[in-house]
């Protein structure tokens, strides 16, 4: 979906909702077009352990793995993130008032190639759902 000019993907994972910016911080790929999948960890060569079904979003381009809960990229959780948005479920009468627009400076910083290495901070949004209203907090 497009909200305030930004493409955002909302994911329903076993009744929990998550929303992330549809833009991979690596090279700008359509992150939300990628598959959601399980997380894989390993203790030793040949050992593949699957957990957390559906909570990992892989970029459809280079395959980078993002944790839908936190927006963090698996291989570098502190340095590489996608922006999350808060999504809540509310009855129609309790929908949150409009939030102030995101600081234009943030958007610009993301769109510029970095001068000096890359800063891969992207946007996540918290999502929640009630009845038929998916409420996305842009603030």
């Amino acid at each position: 979906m497009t909200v305030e000019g930004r493409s955002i993907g909302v994911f329903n994972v076993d009744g929990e909702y998550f929303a992330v910016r549809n833009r991979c911080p690596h090279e700008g790929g359509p992150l939300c077009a990628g598959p959601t999948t399980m997380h894989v960890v390993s203790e030793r060569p040949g050992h593949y352990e699957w957990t957390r079904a559906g909570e990992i979003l892989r970029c459809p381009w280079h395959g980078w793995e993002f944790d839908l809960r936190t927006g963090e990229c698996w291989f570098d959780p502190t340095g590489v993130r996608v922006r999350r948005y808060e999504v809540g479920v509310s009855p129609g009468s309790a929908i949150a008032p409009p939030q102030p627009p995101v600081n234009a400076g943030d958007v610009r910083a993301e769109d510029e190639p970095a001068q000096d290495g890359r800063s891969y901070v992207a946007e996540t949004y918290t999502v929640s759902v009630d009845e038929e209203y998916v409420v996305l907090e842009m603030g």
Partner: protein
Amino acid sequence: MSVITPGREAPSARRKEQLAIVDCDVHTFPPTMGALDAYMPQRWRGYASTLARGYSGSTLGKYPRVAWIGSRHDARPADGSLPGSDLGMIREQLLDMWNIEYAVMTPVYAMQTNFDYAAVVARAFNDWQLEFLDAEPRLRGSITISYEDGPAAAAEIRRAAADKRFVQVLAAARTLEPLGRRKYWPIYEACVEHGLPIAFHYGGQGNPTTGAGWPYYYFEDHGGMSMSLATQATSFVFEGVLDRFPTLKVVLVEGGFAWIKPLFWRMDKAYDTIRGDVQLQRKPSEYFRDHFWLTTQPMEEPTNAKQFPEIIADIGADKLMFASDYPHWDFDAPDMAFPARIDDAVKRRIMGDNARALYGLGVA
């Protein structure tokens, strides 16, 4: 709150390159491999799915790739056709999304064991490319050849070269013998006759992919392609190909580029020390400037991004040509592929001027 509408990040939201870009590696394809049959004599139709063989089998089946057909998830046509077969998608996802002035198609064909069939397939690829070239004026082509069969490859080059929209000849990076060996020289002879560069592109089959046998993982197969291109460049230099064909130009495609400098250092040192093997007219690194170009994808990402501009400067800003490798998974987006800012003049050269000069693009 804002109105929610379905959609995705619109093309105009990408920072559209103001530079007119030349993309030197785009993988267009017929909708199915079988579709190529239409360009073949009756006797060969269907052969690909019956008795056609390759050397050691293709690595396609040996190493599961990051994605289906090695392509971006979002580049798959909805009807299940092969990625790169839908011209509409190519325009939307590549040519129009960025300011792509020219895109060079690179259909690599590697199942070369049956020389008769390989020649037929190469010709079919070249005839098929004409369709795309006719439909989209921004595209340019690469002459596909049955490269293990020198004379047949040369004949195909001579046949296809009449159409000036073919800007180079294309062979695979991993061949049965190193590409400097004499069996391949008829190819180079035909190339220089028609003023066409020879491009060695990611792919190929014939040998274990390392000098110590077959690796386990796609991680090694994919990453190891740069090493294959390196050994090919080495062969080219030391076999004296560039003395024999002083106007020949070589493009190394889809292996990145940072490795080329230490390679030529090593060749120089070796040539200086180990005498008696071959006599060249120049020292190895002197061939680099006049004869070699590299496409940028997969773009190097040094651990310390600040080192990136000096890596480019050390190789030479005029030696690199931008490539996206659309629609593959390791696609480089023109506006975000560079890990650090580089000088505008350098960027212009890499994003288009070098390719225009090499391929004679935009010249009447």
